[in-house]
């Protein structure tokens, strides 16, 4: 199993940023999600985040909402998410689950952490779990030996950044902008400042997500961040493809472009 630590150490040794790809489980189909993630890894993604589809994704823009809705309509369950993690982890990529809190809460924090570790997952990203409410999850994750990644935002005060990074292991997720997920024309200028501010409070790698959609943007973000996170741009290509095979080729092409981007700096 590849840990986040190894991934970031290796990227650092190569003098580049890590490339992190996001795809929801169960989309475009249960097996199609594993195949698409494997294509991303093959094309150069170092880390894969598998989204756990949730009925009320209030941090997500239209692209991810659409994919998640289709995934839930495909009948995706948490067992499918775990199977997806297992399949993706087998490719050698460090594999995390990104999830809203309620499904984990309902499943049982300890059970979720244990099952994820058993599936070969290395941790979670929990966008709506605040430091104040995170204690039970951090305890469960620690005893299962998986990492806990939380988000900082451009609006975060210094005190909030400190509180968030103190809960993080593995890396810190810096949301580049005030808004929901989705590819944007440009990556928000606030991102660089946020990464700088975050580094003052932690030695952990800091990855930037939200709004990155092209190789050029990945290259730009790679000049100041330890990792570049891409989700909606991949999902858009899967949504627009005529079939799964074409979708896989299309996301692989974009991932190759991004992988070059993170090496350009």
């Amino acid at each position: 199993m590849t840990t986040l630590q190894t991934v970031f150490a290796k990227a650092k040794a190569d003098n580049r940023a890590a490339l992190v790809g996001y795809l929801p489980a169960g989309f475009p189909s249960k097996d199609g999600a594993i195949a698409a993630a494997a294509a991303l890894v093959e094309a150069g993604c170092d880390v894969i985040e598998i989204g756990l589809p949730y009925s009320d994704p209030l941090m997500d823009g239209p692209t991810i909402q659409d994919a998640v809705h289709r995934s839930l309509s495909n009948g995706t369950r948490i067992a499918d998410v775990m199977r997806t993690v297992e399949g993706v982890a087998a490719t050698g990529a460090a594999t995390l689950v990104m999830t809203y809190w309620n499904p984990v809460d309902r499943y049982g924090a300890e059970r979720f952490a244990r099952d994820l570790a058993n599936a070969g997952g290395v941790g979670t990203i929990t966008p709506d779990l605040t430091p104040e409410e995170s204690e039970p999850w951090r305890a469960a994750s620690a005893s299962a030996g998986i990492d806990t990644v939380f988000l900082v935002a451009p609006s975060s005060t210094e005190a909030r950044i400190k509180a968030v990074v103190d809960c993080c292991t593995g890396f810190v997720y810096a949301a580049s902008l005030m808004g929901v997920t989705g590819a944007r024309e440009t990556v928000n200028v606030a991102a660089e400042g946020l990464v700088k501010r975050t580094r003052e409070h932690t030695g952990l790698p800091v990855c930037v997500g939200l709004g990155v959609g092209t190789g050029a943007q990945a290259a730009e973000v790679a000049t100041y961040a330890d990792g570049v996170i891409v989700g909606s741009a991949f999902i858009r290509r899967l949504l627009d493809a005529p079939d799964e095979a074409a979708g896989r080729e299309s996301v692989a092409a974009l991932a190759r472009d991004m992988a070059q981007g993170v090496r350009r700096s």
Partner: protein
Amino acid sequence: MANEGSILTAADLAGNGVRGDDPDVHGKFGIFGGRYVPEALIPALDEVAAVYEKAKHDAEFIREFDHLLRTYAGRPTTLTDVPRFSEQAGGARIVLKREDLTHTGAHKINNVLGQALLTKRLGKKRVIAETGAGQHGVATATAAALLGLECVIYMGAVDCERQALNVARMKLLGATVVPVTNGSQTLKDAINEAFRDWVTNVDSTHYLFGTVAGPHPFPEIVRDFARVIGVEARRQILELTGRLPDAVCAAVGGGSNAIGVFHAFIDDQDVRLHGYEAAGHGLESGEHALTLTAGSVGVLHGSRTYVLQDDEGQTIESHSISAGLDYPGVGPEHAWLKDSGRATYRGVTDDEAMAAFSLLARTEGIIPAIESSHALAGALELGRELGPEAIILVNLSGRGDKDMGTAMKYFNL
């Protein structure tokens, strides 16, 4: 507060700190409440909490709020005895608190005026809101017009259709109404969309949340602004009947009108508090909004509370003939009142609510909102249980004008 004729004092607005029933610093009512939101929103929630904390102790703020409640919303609202209606309740004396007589026609105006004043103190020029029945949207659009704020209302596409009249009202008042076509296309999805707008535009925008749910501090703020209902009603029922009621009844969607009327009675241990949720087509049908009666503890819309959810935490879509009760979550303070046993929650079906709706119209000449009709139906049953000596206070949270389309279909009018 030496304001002649004022209805609110500082203590009335913020009964906080006096009672043991206030949330802690993290907005927790016992295990319920708190904040489960993207980090990006935390500073905005902190700011709202800080500005409110200052405002509620500020005599000038209370004076402004009180002034609007009296001269704009039409407070205090009266109590009305409904003897002909009460005959169907085993002769128990039912008394209505007439929130239907407020400007815009529902209790929502109380919270909206308070938060609109807060918006000015926050220095924000734009308000957004979710709405189910359209009453909160209309009230928000109204306050925005009054105070010169830009206003965008998110409303599920299904609700836009069943409350078309309110969509027209909001537009007339200058608001932009955005129909939400995701998910169940009702209140829960409108809330998701409003949060997405807020996180994107938080610098310019206040999210004028419409009920006592959502992340801290909304459950506390909305409750405090709705609290005037019970503060007035307690005083009025003592004057009218010489004693406290045996029970206070209210419909529960998110829970604002219910907490508004309950709160002033919480320390009166002999007064039963009864909340009525929408049972839709009945519990067995699976088509209902019985969040407290049949849901389980989880997190929805930023708060730990009772939720209609499946075994893996996916929200189950609710159903009710009344758009305002068609919500799979509920305010955390109600979750806490339920678990502590202080309040009791029951379900009322679509048919029972519509029967009470029609009965009040025919016996008393008052057409209630379908939401409020759930409380009326509950009171009829409770009256038969408690007997003819009982006094039951019902919060008539709104008027039924907006529901004529539904009533025409239901009764073939």
